[in-house]
């Protein structure tokens, strides 16, 4: 009997600067999950037929590929996307073509905010949440750990100026302002800037206690290196995903001085306590990890990127797709949309730990955004990743301020 199948266009950046910034790893996560589902015999009699495509780190290529996959390859839906610069135009395009799009990664609020898209869903945390969480973390710990009242806390916000960095920084600034923190500097820069020494100098002049940083990979290592060499000091450095999620690179770049850096990200799926998750999920986590190591045997510390894409893809395959097929009778965009709107996963129900629920029409200005998603604050200590915040998930008591002995610690 002819097997039924669902054709999915999977788009990430396999080339260009973003590839190494994490997109490549996200793509791996999605692929591992798709292979896993197929090895389980597919979903409700449907095998998954992925068509992988490379957006080459360029928005116009992403648009082209999206259109091609939909119109030429006649895929039933799209999944993936790493860069928000691509998500913004592609989501608009796909929605106007009335096709279903499941975003695993792009986090910029701009993708969904105020756009009222009908067919685009994002189980992923959005950028402003990152920014808000880091400020919340500071608010709760400034007095106790740093001995500084939150209102007195000097905060600097720096970010790569793409949609991702700007989105997160917007969240940072909004939350910090609301809490009355002292924002001494807020500045964006291009991720390909060959020199950040002026930025470091400005930071030194403004003497922030805490630096909130959002960036991709090369700019983060450049910043850390120049900060170290120019003698920039802080009490805490909080990164926000992307480049900060690739732990190995941080330690490769600046050695042990990368210790005690914080990173706000969806939790690394391998760091979660299996007991906090729904039964069966931890087996999948383990399997994803095993496949990951098979694909990239050199890995020292498993990056959160792989798990993130795997988890977000799994939500679709395990929850949305079966409902669409069983309840709404198909895999067309309309059925998938209805199924997605009914998703209601409680916390602990995904590999990433958070639950999933999308807003009903009119409920939010961010239609398609998972309202139950939340990142965590992690802290890296000696190449190990610990969860520092929120309190319920803590696996470490956050080390704050930066202990003496680090090149970045205040004398």
């Amino acid at each position, binding site marked *: 009997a002819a097997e039924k199948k669902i054709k999915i266009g999977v788009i990430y950046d396999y080339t260009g600067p973003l590839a190494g910034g994490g997109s490549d790893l996200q793509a791996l996560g999605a692929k591992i999950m798709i292979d896993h589902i197929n090895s389980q015999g597919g979903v409700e009699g449907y095998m998954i037929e992925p068509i*992988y495509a*490379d957006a*080459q780190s360029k928005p116009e290529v992403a648009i082209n590929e999206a*259109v091609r996959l939909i119109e*030429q390859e006649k895929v039933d839906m799209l999944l993936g996307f790493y860069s928000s610069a691509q998500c913004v135009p592609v989501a608009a395009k796909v929605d*106007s073509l009335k096709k279903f799009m499941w975003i695993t990664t792009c986090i910029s609020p701009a993708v969904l905010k105020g756009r009222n898209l009908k067919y685009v869903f994002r189980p992923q945390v959005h950028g402003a949440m990152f920014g808000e969480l880091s400020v919340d973390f500071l608010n709760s710990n400034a007095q106790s750990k740093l001995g500084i009242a939150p209102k007195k806390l000097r905060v600097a916000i720096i970010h790569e100026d793409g949609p991702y960095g700007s989105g997160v920084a917007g969240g940072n600034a909004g939350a910090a302002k609301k809490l009355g923190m002292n924002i001494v500097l807020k500045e964006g820069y291009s991720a390909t800037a060959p020199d950040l020494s002026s930025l470091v100098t400005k930071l030194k002049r403004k003497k922030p206690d805490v630096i909130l940083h959002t960036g991709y990979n090369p700019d983060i290592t450049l910043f850390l290196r120049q900060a170290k060499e120019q003698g920039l000091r802080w009490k805490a450095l909080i990164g926000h995903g992307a480049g900060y999620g690739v732990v190995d690179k941080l330690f490769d770049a600046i050695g042990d001085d990368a210790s005690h850096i914080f990173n706000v990200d969806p939790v690394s799926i391998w760091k979660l306590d299996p007991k906090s998750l729904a039964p069966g999920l931890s087996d999948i986590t383990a399997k994803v990890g095993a496949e990951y190591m098979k694909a990239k045997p050199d890995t020292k510390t498993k990056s959160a990127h792989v798990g993130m894409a795997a988890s977000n893809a799994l939500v679709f395959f395990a929850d949305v797709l079966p409902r669409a097929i069983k309840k709404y009778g198909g895999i067309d965009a309309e059925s998938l949309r209805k199924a997605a709107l009914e998703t209601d996963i409680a916390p602990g129900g995904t590999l990433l730990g958070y639950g999933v629920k999308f807003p009903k029409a009119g409920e939010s200005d961010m239609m398609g955004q998972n309202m139950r998603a939340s990142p965590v604050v992690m802290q890296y200590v000696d190449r190990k990743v610990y969860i520092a915040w929120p309190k319920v998930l803590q696996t470490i008591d956050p080390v704050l301020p930066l202990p003496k002995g680090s090149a970045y610690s205040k004398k």
Partner: protein
Amino acid sequence: MNSKLLIAVVAAVLVALPFLGLDSYPLHLVIVILIWSFAYTGWSIMGRFGLVSLGHGAFMAVGGYVTALLWNELGLTPWIGIPIAMLCAGGLAVLIGYPCFKFRIVGHYFALVTLALSEVVRQIIIATRDTTGGSLGYTPERHGDGWSVIALQSDDRMVFYFVALAVWMAGIVIWRLVDRSMARYALEAISEDEDASAAVGVRVTREKLKVTVLSAVMTAFAGAMYCQYQMFISPDTIGGVGISLQIVFAVVVGGIYNSLGPTIGAVITLLLAEVLRIWIGTEAYCLTEKICLNVAGVPLLVYGIMLILFIIFLPKGIVGAVADRWQARNNGSVPAK
């Protein structure tokens, strides 16, 4: 006669194209190619006279951004916005061109000054991110569903196809008009020897400026078109050094001295990129356990090699080479270099 017939046939095929059951995606490609072809044609109008500008990314960006900003911020219809954008690009061309020509900045120097221009414009777009969206890109606001004449927006590709086709043809016509004009002789002369040209009465600065402004304005128009069609622009998709180089490469591959050269260049380079990307896909091939090749890099690699081979072996581009062959067969002789 013969060539007129050929043109008629080509025109008929082009007009009939969407009715010949061309799928939506190929139609999309054709539209994109037409828009780029127009931009490339615009570049070659000056490029063929040795005015190698690496600054056309700037003009294209001005075309797209000014049009979109006017629409979003002031609600000014692109019908007015595009002419304003073209005016801006023309102004920018004068701003950079006049001193360049006055001070005799030619050759590599001109190329690099204009290269700096595209970087300046790109950086300014990025730096004014509060208005332009920075490297996030910029989207003209939709004016309802379906298609809107006032906003020059359309969901229907067919409409855009015919607009793009008309624009492209206009580009070819402009190219030919310049080619037949007296200005062409003047510019050929200028490109070889400015002093000698001035000595026979040619107004060097003015002639150069005229063609530069024409070229810039055409490129800006292409930028606006691109924006209206894709409904998205970003500093890297229609501005910056990358785009400037893309334009130059395509024209050289196609043939700089022929009206159809830029178009052929667009067809070849854009299709090549498309085909290579799709064909090669995203898999990694491992030679051994440890040594894996990332074949995603192959398109870039092939593109590079092709470009080099083209330049070494077909320095006049594809159209130029074909035309030479054609001429040689008709004359039974070898064409002069």
